[in-house]
């Protein structure tokens, strides 16, 4: 509806093991292209993250590289990676963990 000011190249990552923080995620996905933003929302009640997150690449190439690779394995766990359908600006949870 609103005119999109800039294009976003985001993936939505689930099954993120608890041992991974956004730093490790960022580092890992950095191999596919420059990572613009990376967020793993925290559960404030427990101090653990919620097991999913978003990684935004600055180019479509990074996004495609990341989507092409399968499986993505981090700390012995397989991550589920998919193209992000809803832009994560919609996710109000990011108040909890504004890392960008």
């Amino acid at each position, binding site marked *: *509806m*609103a*005119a999109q*000011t*800039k294009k976003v190249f985001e993936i939505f990552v689930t099954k993120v093991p*608890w*041992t991974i*923080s956004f*730093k*490790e995620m*960022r580092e890992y996905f950095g191999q596919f292209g420059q*990572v*613009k*933003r*990376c967020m793993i929302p*925290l*559960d*404030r*009640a*427990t*101090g*653990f*993250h919620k097991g999913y997150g978003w990684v935004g690449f*600055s180019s479509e190439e990074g996004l495609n590289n990341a989507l092409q690779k399968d*499986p993505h*394995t981090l*700390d*012995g*766990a*397989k991550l589920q990676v998919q193209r992000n*359908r809803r832009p994560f*600006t*919609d996710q*109000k949870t*990011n108040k909890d963990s*504004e*890392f*960008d």
Partner: protein
Amino acid sequence: MAALLRSARLLKFSPSGLLQIAGSKSTGPPIGRLYSGALRGSETGVCSRQISRTSGDVSSRLGPYTVGCVRNYAVATEQKEEGSAGVRTKQVQQFDWALAKLDSSVRRTGRITKTLLLRIFHDICRTGYPSGNQALLLLRSCGALLPEMPLQERSELAHHIWEKLQELGAQYDVSHYNALLKVYLQNEFNFSPTDFLAKMEASNIQPNRVTYQRLIAAYCQNGNIEGASTILGFMKSKDLPITDAVFNSLVTGHARAGDIESAKNIFPVMKGAGIEPSPDTYLSLLNAYAEKGDLDSLKQTMEEAESADCSLMDRDIMQVIYTLAKAGHQQHIPEMVERLRHERGYVPDAMNLCLRLITLQLEDTAFYILKTFPTLQSESFSDDSASLGNFFLRHCVNIGMSLEKLGIFCKELEESKLHSSPLTFSLSCALDSKMTARSLELMKMLKEQDFPIRPHYFWPLLTQHVKDNNTSGVIEVIKGMQDLGVSPDVETITKYILPVFQNMEAVRQAFQEAGISLESENFWSLEVRSMAVNNLAELCAKLSDPLFPSLDLSAFRGSLIIGFKKFDDVESMVKITELLYKDERFSKGDPAETVSYLLYKLMDSMSEREVQTQEEKLKNYFNQLHTKNIIIPQNIYRGIRNLLELYNVPELIKNINVLVDPANRGPIGNVPALPRTPRTDGKVSALESKLAELIAENKPIASVLKQTIQALCAEENLQRALELKQQHKQNMSIGAYASLIGLCCRLDNLEEALNLKTEMSQMDSSKALDANKYIGLVKSLCNNGRVEEALDLLKEMKEKDVAVNDTHAALFFHMLNSLVAKGSAQTIQLLLDTIFALGLAKPSANLCSVLITVHLERDDLAGALEAMLECQKRYKQLPRIHDIIVGLVEKGDTALLQKAMDFVSQERGEMTMLYDLFFAFLQTGRYREARKIVETPGMRARPGRLQWFAEKCILGNQLEALEHMVDMTAKLFECDRDEMYSYALRLCYNTNNWQKAEALWTKMQEDNIIPRERTLRLLADILKNNGQKVPFEVPETWYQKAADTKEVQQQLLQTAETKDLPTPAENGAGYQVQLLTLCKKGKAKQAYGMLKDADKRGMAFGPAPYDFLIRALLAEGALEDAMVVRDIAVARVPGFHLSDTANTLIIVTQSKKGQTEDALETLRSMLQANQVPGQLAITRLTQALGSDGNLAGINEVESLLKSLSTSLNLSNMLFVNNKALAHIKNGDVESAVEDLEAIFTDPDNQKFSVSFVFKSVLKEDNDKALDKLSAMAERLANHFACYRPATDLFLQLVDMNKLEEAKFMLARCNAVADQKDILMSYVMRRAQSPGQVGKINALLSLIPDFAEKDSLYPYLMKCHALDKDLQAAKTLYEQIQKEGVVLDELSLKRLAGLYRRNGETVPFSEPPETFKFYAAKLKDTAAKADVTAEK
């Protein structure tokens, strides 16, 4: 995890379970086995023999009762429910949800975690007054359902709950006492049965059969045969039936008394009493041997059980293993483990066994069991994520097992590839349970094994300390971090360290005292922050230092902005900005964007006055940035420009404009509106066809003629109708012909009907009859044996494209069914094939059933079966399968039965086949066989199928079959027991069989089932209808019968008349009931009078009635009266406090009355008392504060709620909007605009609604504010592409009928017309209440085509329906038809309702289903459309 377990079991089920018998076909299960002893392959018998042998052997005894309630539950899945449950349960009135959660955890897993139980218990205590049923559920949960809790603690918890709930006014009946007894037994709790009975007696509660049974069990648990005999004597004297449960207890009793011979001797005694020993009887004996460690007798007894057709399930053997382990005979366990068959539910049962063993500190045995878990499931895991034993590790961690032992288990799990990361998982459990020391130990261990330890591992530990503001706790964790060589990162410092200290200095000091090093680079960010607000030059030097670590600007942006505003050191500002722009250390993303955003934020954080006074400094700053070649993106520039326009500093805009990349630098202009898509609609073609119709029948007589003929047809006066037709042949319309043909078919005057049809098509061959008439004709033709013509007619239907829908399928069915009597299967098949082939109806079980019926009517089962097989092949339908199988079972035709079963299981799966067989056996009274079927390993509950049979029984009054089904499904995997009992009760209700109903209730207690409230009400109704006393508390509904009301009113009148005399309800309880009833009827004032009256006489009640009355008074807004009642309650009930709901209502009332200070105070005290306010309270209070202009108040509410760790689901904009209103109220429109704009320039927030602000301002006619807000909305739309505010304002103008202004608004900001979603949702909301159609039309007049007609018309129709405006609806419908738009069925139904309300006949065929049906259908279609769109 759950899904994996389940699918694993099903996998196991399909190849093994049913197909293991030798000699069976590989395509289907062997039918013979289903008849014979289900689990022994050696006994595979011939089924016909078995049927004849067993058909007379229907025992009427009730099935074997379960010993431990755990037997009733099958699946345990590994869950972490606590996390998500935590937040939600806190909310007001959420405890029903919580109870459901508990219940479902039990139903599905057979266990509950202590945390979940306690949380729900506390919620119930805190939030309200518990019902009897809630109490039952809680009590019932304190036994074997808590395998992770030591036995002693479980009983203590049960007592605690019992007392606490009683205190809160829960009423206990016999079911509660029975539940407590069961818990005692499960917890092996030592108590005195006589005292228990005395206690019941003192409470005036009559023990029942189940009570006695359990008391006997209690005596027997201690080997007290004498005690047991006394109770047994009681039972006999009361003529209570002695069931096998009693004998099972006696076996245990004798054995525990050391007399194993007598224990064995119970078996013949039982048989003598006509009761077969059940598997549980054998289990009692097995446990006795296990306690003695007598392996030989164990084995021997197991064999005896096998040969007595009492198959022991895995769960039974697990019980024996548990007993062996507990008695210290571990050496025999491997023998028993070998006997485990890994049948359905093995994993969950074994999980519970492990947990119980670990609780008893028999973890080695538990580990041994763990290793027996089927490795099958790891195949479905990818090899890198095996996680067997998570539950095991978690429990080990939680009970504080020694680190060494835990380490050994982890090592073994990992080495045997059962678990990929056991140690890491254990750590997460320790963290989850906030076990600091244990977590640190585990991390140390991980570190030794070269695993990285990351800062965020410590967050779960820190979270709690931060919440509690516990500095020493935080220090302890940080120290642990340091010991592990981990330095806190920025997030850790800002989120978990700083919040508990006053400032950086305090951190420094505390850390130094604790011996924690501050050299971590992450502390630098703190330093940076403090420098930023103290000295920019120093900061600049620090940041420029190449040794300075990478640090994202977001870590210190806030401080930096403060510094930029505070100091005039432009030189440092420029240097710092340049550094940030060029040095990637300070940005995670694009540095240019980071810096631009900083600029925006800087301007954003400044007020108008600040900008104006610092204009020179800023100008200087921007200019210097330009010289440093700093470039900002266009969109951010626009945001900044917008801010500057607001601040009235146009000069600065020029300075910032130069920073925009020249390539993109456009003129200052509006974002062009999106082009509107032109649309076409079917107007033209619709008009044309209408025209053609008018030409075709331009004789005025036609319509009258038609009406006359139709009236004659209704009277079945064919002759006169035909005469009329003959006279006015020229003026006959199609409709008139159709009516005539319909009548001829009804009267079976086939020839005339065909003549008429020919005449009609001569008149206009393009016209066709409707489907009803066609089907009538087809039926007549068939009945007269003229099948060929009938088939031609069907083809004609297709050719002429006659519209058919679902209702016509029913007509086809009746047509075909009328042919059954004539008995030609071929004719029916031919017709059906043609109907399906032509697509006139879709193949359905109902339609196909005719093909079967024709054979069944002639008792030709083989033919019926063949026909059914054919149906499946052709149409994928299995019509009347139940009837066929019942027929085959009754006849004992095993060959055909085998064939049918093979076929069904091949086509529909074994489970479907087994259910078909199960129902057939139940139907034919072959209960023994039915039981074998339902006990087939792998069988699981299919609620839909069970319901189908239950409903059939209820309809056909087959109590016996239904009762057997209820009984047999006791151990069925995932079977909803309450549901099953409620079926049986419904039948009792229909037949007024209260004795049976009461017996069912007792049996529910025996089976340890918690009835749903619905079931209890049903039971109570049955008892009441038959003049019986209801022995339990009936859950109340808010809707009660009118009769009740009258009764109470009369009593009340009496009370009033005889004021000085003792009232009829002198005792407290009677009064209480009256009070509650009045409250629920909304007669709070009367109740209030009554209470005051009672109080004068010194009567006191429990806390519940007071709370109820307060709530009722508040609901009427009677705040003062409510406060009086509160004072009375405080005086009468020590420790009385208002419930969350009552306090919520108080806040609402106070807010409404404008007593905002009082309301705030109430909120504060609520939060202090750890209560949770309702969402409505916060909304009303904030609104009240907003209209008072009380900004501070809103800020306080906002911060108070932040401390409340749960979200109340408040609107995102509640605080923002009301703060804006408060500003406006205080005459400070600028601040309001500033705040709102700040919100909307953030792209995260662009969809939030500000309607509330506009509405309030419009209502108050505050033109000044409106002007500024309107300017803001336009700015946001034109410069930030944020259209929501403009659209909101536009709609509010429409809503207030300020159409001129709305029009101007639209002209200025035409993108509003494209906000389809917002506009549509406005229409939807308006269409919810009557009298709003004008507003929708006004909107349409301004923006005529924002939505598709077919999505808009239904709402208009809904409006007319709400307004009961038939005329408008008719006009609309005409228009719709003219335009050729298809109206959905829901709207048609609404329209039809309007016609009927006005006593007019509905001129179209009304959709036959309910509103709900069509609403669901629409939703479904919409959802599907969404999915397609997404694809």
